């Protein structure tokens, strides 16, 4: 048989035949087995060849088990049962016996027969006609789109659909609860799934109505929790809708009275739920979500509420996501946030309040990151990759190949599908940075440098921290003068600006933020921050440098680069004018009024001169009313994510 290796077809080996014979209680000699094996091969090929004609006549491209069985039947051979399923059968192997077999589970027939929740989703076969080409010209509908009535609904399904949507989107909260509950447990609504998904994708049209958005999110939750629904590729669409609620500067958030923060928190929670329960249905979903969040985070043009959404989204996806996306971006982002928070002008009050929200969210996220990271260090046995960051403090700059909580990295080239516009198409314009994990102590140092004592998680920041000195000078390749850690350098630590800080009207309240002088603290503390980065990872070093004291140079940092240029969000029209649209009234209400930022700036200023703190991008919206402080202080606590 050795001389047949050139053949391109499968062979049944002599050993297999022998094994089969043994299992039937027959002992076969070598020569007999060889003959039999050859004949079996031939018969198999013959059956395969004749099965192909059943495929051809069924006008299919795919050869099915059914085709093969027909061929067997016509050649008077017993058919093979139990392989008709559409899904691929997973092969399992037994090492010792070199056996491969498919998992043949016991089926409880009684249970199956008495099951009451038989899915009834199969739609009726039907014929639909459409005029495709008129007079041989033109396609009346775009190519490749799905015919609209792929699934037709029976009357009762249609009624159900109408009732449910009416109940959920209607006024009666009790009815809504009932509807959601049913949506969660009904086993017969598979055919309606596309319709519900379509309804949910309507989030974009109700972005002014928090209540409706909430209801739609509840609908998502119910669908996701329904054990009888196979979401399939609809996951992508659902995720897209949820992401919309997390990230978009919703029209509802114009009014500071609206508690859109809670909505974002809830959506983030939902996102994590979808992801952890259904994330495996769409490949590359994790990375697409991360990319979207990263893009929002690094886009200074976006309003703070979007950034908030990105942070809670990352938080919801787990500490790995935070470590991977938020943490590297923190230095760059921090400067902008700092600028907002440091601006005590009355006109900035609202933005500043938003900034505090973001600040709080970041704080919660990084605290959890620190905690989890510490936990993973202390329990090296738990999760292979979790143990790695701690164990190799010395080996800086290695890559985590399999983040414990996240799916294995995938090539980021999958384009987002269809309506999933909210998922970032991988790699498009937003290069995935090489990511190097930072050892915990260094991370802590850096975070401490940002948050100071606001960090609830405390590690000893002294040289004896844990078993590993956090960031000793010896580890740092470059000769930074500043001692690491905030403890030794308390004056440079950026403290969290207190909410109660005086809301001084800045001297130039009539001017734009761009004219604010750079805060002195920034230049002084910049270097301390960069110390936290591992020395061997050049990319992160670059980034931290760029955001460091030489604030004038914007070299490498992605976010920093776009920051000053892109902050003119409003439809600016060529000439270097700068105008306030709404000034007077709001200005008069000192301390309350949020500064209206419908401003148009001419790009008159040299880009390099803009101080990083000039965090000037705002919602391009007119007519905000003042937002009471207690309100968002209260919603601050909504950021609890039980992950």
């Amino acid at each position, binding site marked *: 048989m050795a*001389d047949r290796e*050139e053949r391109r077809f499968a062979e049944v080996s002599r050993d297999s035949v022998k094994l089969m014979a043994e299992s039937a209680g027959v002992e076969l000699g070598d020569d007999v087995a060889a003959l039999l094996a050859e004949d079996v091969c031939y018969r198999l090929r013959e059956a395969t060849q004749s099965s192909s004609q059943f495929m051809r006549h069924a006008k299919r491209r*795919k050869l099915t088990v059914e085709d093969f069985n027909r061929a067997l039947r016509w050649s008077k051979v017993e058919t093979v049962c139990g392989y008709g399923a559409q899904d691929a059968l997973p092969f399992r192997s037994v090492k010792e016996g070199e056996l491969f077999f498919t998992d043949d589970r016991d089926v409880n027939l009684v249970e199956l027969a008495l099951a009451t929740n038989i899915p009834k989703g199969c739609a009726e076969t039907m*014929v*639909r006609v459409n005029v495709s080409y008129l*007079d041989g010209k033109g*396609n009346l509908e775009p190519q490749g789109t799905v015919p609209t009535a792929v699934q037709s609904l029976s009357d009762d399904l249609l009624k159900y659909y109408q009732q449910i949507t009416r109940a959920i989107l209607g006024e009666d909260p009790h009815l809504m609860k009932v509807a959601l509950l049913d949506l969660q447990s009904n086993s017969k609504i598979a055919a309606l799934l596309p319709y519900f998904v379509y309804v949910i994708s309507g989030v974009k049209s109700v972005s002014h109505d928090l209540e409706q958005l909430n209801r739609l999110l509840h609908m998502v939750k119910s669908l996701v929790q329904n054990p009888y629904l196979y979401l399939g590729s609809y996951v992508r669409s659902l995720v897209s809708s949820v992401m919309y609620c997390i990230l978009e500067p919703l029209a509802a958030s114009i009014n500071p009275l609206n508690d859109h923060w809670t909505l974002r928190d809830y959506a983030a929670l939902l996102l994590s739920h979808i992801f952890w329960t259904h994330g495996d249905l769409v490949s590359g979903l994790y990375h697409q979500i991360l990319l979207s969040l990263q893009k929002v985070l690094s886009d200074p043009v976006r309003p703070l509420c979007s950034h908030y959404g990105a942070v809670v989204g990352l938080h919801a996806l787990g500490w790995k996501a935070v470590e991977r996306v938020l943490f590297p971006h923190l230095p760059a982002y921090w400067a902008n946030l700092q600028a907002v928070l440091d601006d005590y002008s009355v006109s900035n009050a609202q933005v500043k309040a938003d900034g505090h929200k973001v600040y709080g969210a970041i704080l919660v996220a990084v605290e959890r990151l620190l905690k989890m990271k510490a936990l993973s260090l202390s329990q090296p046995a738990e999760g292979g990759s979790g143990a790695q960051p701690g164990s190799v403090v010395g080996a800086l700059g290695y890559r985590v190949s399999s983040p414990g909580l996240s799916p294995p990295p995938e090539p980021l080239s999958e384009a987002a599908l269809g309506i999933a516009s909210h998922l970032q198409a991988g790699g498009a314009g937003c290069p995935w940075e090489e990511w190097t994990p930072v050892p915990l102590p260094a991370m802590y140092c850096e975070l401490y440098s940002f948050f100071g004592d606001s960090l609830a998680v405390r590690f000893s920041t002294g040289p004896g921290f844990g078993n590993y000195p956090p960031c000793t000078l010896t580890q740092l390749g470059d000769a930074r003068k500043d001692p690491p850690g905030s403890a030794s350098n308390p004056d440079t630590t950026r403290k969290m600006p207190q909410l109660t800080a005086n809301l001084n009207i800045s001297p130039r309240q009539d001017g734009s933020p761009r004219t604010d002088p750079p805060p002195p603290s920034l230049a002084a503390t910049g270097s301390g921050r960069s110390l936290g980065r591992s020395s061997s990872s050049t990319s992160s070093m670059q980034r931290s440098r760029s955001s460091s004291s030489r604030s004038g140079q914007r070299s490498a940092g992605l976010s920093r680069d776009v920051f000053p240029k892109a902050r003119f969000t409003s439809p600016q029209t060529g000439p270097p004018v700068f105008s306030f649209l709404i000034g007077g009234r709001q200005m008069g209400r000192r301390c309350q009024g949020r500064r209206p930022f419908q401003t148009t700036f001419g790009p008159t200023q040299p880009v390099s001169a803009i101080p990083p703190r000039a965090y000037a991008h705002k919602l391009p919206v007119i007519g905000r009313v003042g937002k009471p402080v207690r309100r968002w202080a209260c919603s601050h606590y909504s950021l609890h994510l039980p992950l």
Partner: protein
Amino acid sequence: MAAVQGGMVDTDEEKDIKTEPPSDGCGNNNANDGRVLSASPASSASSGSNKSAAGAPEDQQTLLAVLQFLRKNKLNESVEILRREAGLPEDLLDLKAGDSSGTGPGGAAGSVDEGGDASSLLSRVTVSSSGVVQAPAKAPGEDQPDVNVVLSAYSQQGDPSLYGVYYSGLKRFIESVLDCHRAELSQVFYPLFVHMYLELVYNNHENEAKVFFEKFSGDQECYYEDDLRILSGMTKKEHMRGNETLLDFRTSKFVLRISRDSYQLLKRHLQERQNNQIWNIIQEHLYIDIFDGMPRSKGQIDAMSGSLAGEAKREANKAKVYYGLLKEPEIELPLDDEDEEAENEEGKPKKKKPKKDSMGSKSKKQDPNAPSQNRIPLPELKDSDKLDKIMYMKEATKRIRLGPDNLPSICFYSFLNAYQGLTAVDFTDDSSLIAGGFADSTVRVWSVTPKKLRKVKSAADLNLIDKESDDVLERIMDEKTASELKILYGHSGPVYGISFSPDRNYLLSSSEDGTIRLWSLQTFTCLVGYKGHNYPVWDTQFSPHGYYFISGGHDRVARLWATDHYQPLRIFSGHLADVTCTRFHPNSNYVATGSSDRTIRLWDVLNGNCVRIFTGHKGPIHALAFSPNGKFLASGATDGRVLLWDIGHGLMIGELKGHTDTVYSLRFSRDGEILASGSMDNTVRMWDATKAFDDLETDDFTAATGHIHLQDNSQELLLGTYLTKSTPVIHLHFTRRNLLLAAGAYNP
């Protein structure tokens, strides 16, 4: 040459064609299924002496060989008895014995005989059969292998190790000849290769066979790839048993067309080299159709070759075909004021209709190429048929004149939620109903007009209605059963073929379960199950005049049925593999069948003869369409090509390249200007049929060889490519006003 081909060969040919016993018109001529299916000469040989002469031609050859054997052994009485019992004419035997006794097995090889060669040829057979070079003089005992040669096609054998040497010797020779001959002689390679390989396998030289295959399989033309794949799996003598494809290859002759000059070259070479092995195969398994004139070019050869058994013999396409249309029965068009009434309701019988039939006025001249009106008895037109004809003519007046500048609109009927199960589709001629055959054994009929489908009331209810009332036809319908869709249950396997009767009262469906079922569209029940194929029935179609229908299946025969006969009227046997599609000629006198042996055959319904064999496709044929004027045939195959044929002259006249996957449907527009093709590649393409047919140079037809040179003008003829939405196009239909309807299952 013709003289040489006479005698034995001709009789053989006739027998070959007339496998069907002579039939009297359309009487029920019960066919013998068993005979058709047991085609192996070997199996029937033991009892061969008892068989009637009307058996397969191979049987007759066997008989002749046995007779010779008896005669040689001076068993004259036995000879006489056997001859009488078999009903063989004496002169036939004499001719056989006297002229070319040695070529008994390869009777058709007589075409290459040239008188004096006979004895030497005979010697070659015997020489090679014993494997040793011997003198021409032969002992009586040595004739015994003759019989065996017949009984088992490959009993002779040379030195197995020399096969490769022989083959490569021939290869070297053919490569060294002049260019003009090389292409022609290269045709020999494939059949030779296959037969040599099979000989090796048959004689249990497994290893030599493998080596031989490895060495030379790469040389073969790419379109034989599928066959080679089958061959490659076959390494044991036991495998050959039961493999129908190979059985056919072994027992039928591979036909080659070679010019006389090229053939002489080959012959001289083989004789000089004493290359008996190859010469034997050429003698026994090849039919070389020699023509006088210029050798053909490679392109010409490639266009025609590719079928399982080589090209068609020229003789096979010589028979006269009456491809003209029958005269339409004269029906007076009602005046305009009556239009309303006619359009109003078909069900209403029209009283004013003049009772004029085909014997009416002779305003239309009889087409000279048309068969006589009653060559095939056709059912008489009923009133409702006439009404329908009137409707048809009215619609025809509103028909859009199509052309390259005026392409039809396309409506696509998408089958949704078919879960890959749609296997066949048909429209009624008036496009009011659509039927789908499904893999789950069901047949579903939809009404595509607002008119719902209704059943006839039950017998008890029918008794209650007033039979004299004007709207009795309306009253018999049960309003309660009105629905858009009716599902017909009855088959026990996927439904592969489906066809509406022209009067829309019946529906035929053919299935994997081996039956064809006739359904009533009045009661939506099954009326008849036609059994006979015993294997999957791939296709079926009603005659354009109703009553008759044709079916073709895995048993390699096509059958002609009449709806009121439970057994077939004709069995068209001759294809070497499954009959995959069947079509009636517009005049109902002929049927065309496409097969997975990659040939198309045209059969005469009257006498069951095969009147045309078209070769040129490189894959199983899945679509056929006659042009409305009956002169041309279009065929589509898995190779994605559409070929056009002139029926009258039996020639390929066009090749339309463009599709990238199997062509599953073909349809000419009502006036024949446009050919639409639908394919698995999710496109509908339209071709300029007028141009394709007009561009023919009539000189080519008159050329004796009939080897026309095809221009590669597919791109000029292609009028448009129309994409569907991931829906393979499995059926096309032109409405009476020339709107193109396409159908397929949406395949997400």
